[in-house]
């Protein structure tokens, strides 16, 4: 069970959180302007790296806030936690 530092509530057990996959995938400005390929990319295609990964978590059983984290998917170590809207911090895995 990972200990995830909620930016507001501090470290809490993973069971209190909901995973939201890759971070920084913005809803397209104008979906109708996209080709089917572009729309499919937004809909289904995500980075899936082995290593540091910027991803979203929601403290669903706590303060119910979404935030971003950089986690090393090889070790599951959380390298950084930051709020929605902030840029991804530099991390050294």
């Amino acid at each position: 069970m990972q200990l995830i530092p909620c930016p507001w509530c501090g470290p809490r057990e993973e069971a209190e959180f909901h995973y939201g996959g890759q971070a920084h995938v913005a809803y397209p400005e104008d979906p109708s302007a996209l080709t089917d390929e572009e729309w499919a990319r937004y809909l289904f295609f995500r980075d899936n790296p082995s290593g540091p990964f910027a991803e979203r978590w929601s403290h669903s059983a706590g303060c119910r806030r979404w935030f971003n984290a950089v986690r090393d998917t090889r070790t599951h170590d959380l390298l950084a936690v930051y709020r929605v809207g902030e840029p991804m911090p530099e991390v050294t895995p």
Partner: protein
Amino acid sequence: MTADPTSPLHAWTDGLAALAPVLAVAERPFRSQLTVRVSDPEAIAAAGSALGVPFPSTPCTFTTGSGPFGDVEVLWLGPGEFLVVAGPGLQIAIEEVVRDALGTARGSVVDTSAQRTTVVLEGPLVRDVLAHGCSVDLHPSSAPAGTCVQTLLARTGIVLQVTGEDAFTVLVRSSFAGYLAAWICDACVEYLAAEVTAPGTVGA
């Protein structure tokens, strides 16, 4: 004709009372509860002064105070999200006052009085009982009185307030209240029995 209200745990009154002396547990039903969403500091301050209690500015805490609606607690539920709790029957009046205080600031006020019910737990074993299902560190050094966390207790979400040395308040969604009561009673089984059997027969 006016209908009598029924609280989610009314059928559990005796069952919970029977947990004494291990734990003093009782439902405190029908409290006025309002979910307030607001981030603007001025509006927050205005709401606080209208109720006679400053809203908590530290995450995972609650504040208490007294004002036109008597004793009022404000619980931090999340950034810009608070639960205002007062005695029974005040929800409509408080909603109005808070809405006025927020003025044009972004925010919302919702009467959620019956959404959750309140269970008060007291006694020296309260931390032990809760530690069977709550992963938050409740040691006084990390959860002093005034702490208020939203977390899980076994398989239900709760809002947990540390109200005194060995006193906690749990707010639980009404539909989960029966589960919570059953869980607490079950968690106390061993402690209740330890009251009658010789101590030290089992480990910590």
